[in-house]
């Protein structure tokens, strides 16, 4: 554990903790963004440039903006929210379950008896080229499926946002 790791971890934890604790929903999202940036920093610290930059592009550039817009359009500004949701017990149970599953998976991966990782794993120098190679050869089917899923979601969003009065004219055109 180096100083770099500790600083990045502190930023991540502080950001996400603030995201849970702050009253104003927009402040929460901005704090969460700090957490995202901290995670991106951790990826970069581990030498995973591609993943780190993609993390910033997707989470800071897209997810945070989307969350902020959703909050702005649905909430009444200036009204502080209840600090605890009514369903906090369920939330805690789900969070604990997710944490235990992940912890178990991580633990299993690094168990010294598992022969695969008997040697302490060395960070491989993965270039963008190798990631592209893997995506286009070995993992091409999952990639295509995700693409299909996203296309379906896109079409769904367009249909939801479409003017209902256009439906009649479109059906006329279809007939």
């Amino acid at each position, binding site marked *: 554990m180096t100083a770099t790791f500790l600083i990045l971890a502190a930023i991540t934890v502080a950001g996400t903790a603030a995201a849970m604790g702050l009253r*104003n929903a*927009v*402040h929460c999202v*901005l704090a969460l*963004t700090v957490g995202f940036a901290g995670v991106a920093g951790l990826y970069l610290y581990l030498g995973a*440039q*591609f993943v780190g*930059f*993609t993390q*910033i*592009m997707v989470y*800071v*550039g*897209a997810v*945070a*903006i989307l969350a*902020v*817009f959703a909050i*702005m359009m649905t909430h009444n500004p200036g009204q502080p929210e209840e600090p605890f949701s009514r369903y906090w017990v369920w939330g805690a149970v789900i969070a604990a379950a997710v944490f235990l599953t992940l912890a178990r998976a991580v633990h299993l991966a690094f168990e010294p008896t598992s022969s695969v990782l008997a040697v302490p794993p060395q960070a491989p120098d993965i*270039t*963008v*080229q190798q990631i592209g190679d893997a995506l286009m050869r070995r993992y091409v089917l999952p990639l295509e499926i995700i693409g299909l899923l996203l296309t379906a979601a896109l079409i769904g969003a367009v249909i939801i946002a479409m*003017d*209902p*009065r256009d439906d009649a004219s479109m059906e006329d055109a279809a007939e």
Partner: protein
Amino acid sequence: MIATTLSAESIDQIFVLAKHALLARTPSALQSFVSALISIVPLLVVFPSLFAITTILERKGLGRMQNRLGPNRVGPFGLLQPAADGIKALIKEDVVPTAADQTVHFFAPVVFVAAAFLAYAVLPIGRNMVLVNLNAGVLFFFAAGSVVELSVFMAGWSSRSKYSLLGAMRAIAQMISYEVPLVLASVPAIMQAGSLSTVGIVEAQAGYTGIWPHWYLFTPWGIVGFVLFLIAATAESNRSPFDLPEGESEIIAGYFIEYSGFKFALFFLAEYLGMFATSALGITLFLGGWSAPFSFLSFIPSWFWFFAKLLALIFFFIWIRGTLPRLRMDQLMGFAWKFILPMALLNMFVAGLWRFLPAGIIRWIVCAAVLAAPCIVLSFALKQKKKLLVRTYHFAE
């Protein structure tokens, strides 16, 4: 002859050599720190100075296009106007609205400027002159650019003013819509170079055939890619004709209207820095980075060519601003999603085609035809479907 080439080379590398000379005299414990400092400080000096020069160029240039003089009171021909503007911004009162969210209001310009400067880390401004040669440099550039959108939102939301919020909404909608074509337009150059590193892309365009350079601009997909890139870059930097987020006549100045004094100047600075950075990326991807336009001109230092190309692009942006009127919001979005995006996708396909066809004039003609035909068809199709209706907002009633 050898002496002249040697001296030309040393002028080309003068900044690199100066850095090495300085580093040799620092104690080894401080070396990495001093090295970073020497690399970063010039960027923090040169590009804001370029911003100052650009403001006077822009005001003079626009004045010339509009048959007036432009600034002509401060110094000879008004050339000291940027200094006067800077001093004015510094000594003005910093007014923060009472209703504003103080913390976010303060951090918005800071984040904006920081993100704008971050992009310069990967731009090669000369031979061996790049701050960090990242493996995923182009990706880093776009990641830094995506942070800008968040700071725009922070500025617009925290001001608690309807003009700010409207400006921020417009700006974010526009930036997200045009970020997609911006990235897609740069993909063909990345495909051809086979590298995401900015230095790698410049090196892939090195060399000359006769006197002509191997820039990607001189291929069918390169021309189309560069034009698409320029359009998207104009929109990304919120410049006319895509200046809806700031439209002075509609929403005064958009998301940073509630800022005053130096923070207002910071927004201006960051916006221009963003424009320079995107132009520089365009130069890197399509115009051969710092390489000379003709083989017989390569004795002129590489950094000169980089800044010459940058100034030419800045002039282009000023010219466009003085020429075109502002678009309407629906025109802006329609243009991005119905024209630029399909063309960018097609351009990626053509770049692949270019790679697999045998070199020669046939390849050129085939690729150009594949690009030109859909472009013409698409333009006519979009032109004829124009009918104006009353808009309905079905979730905001």
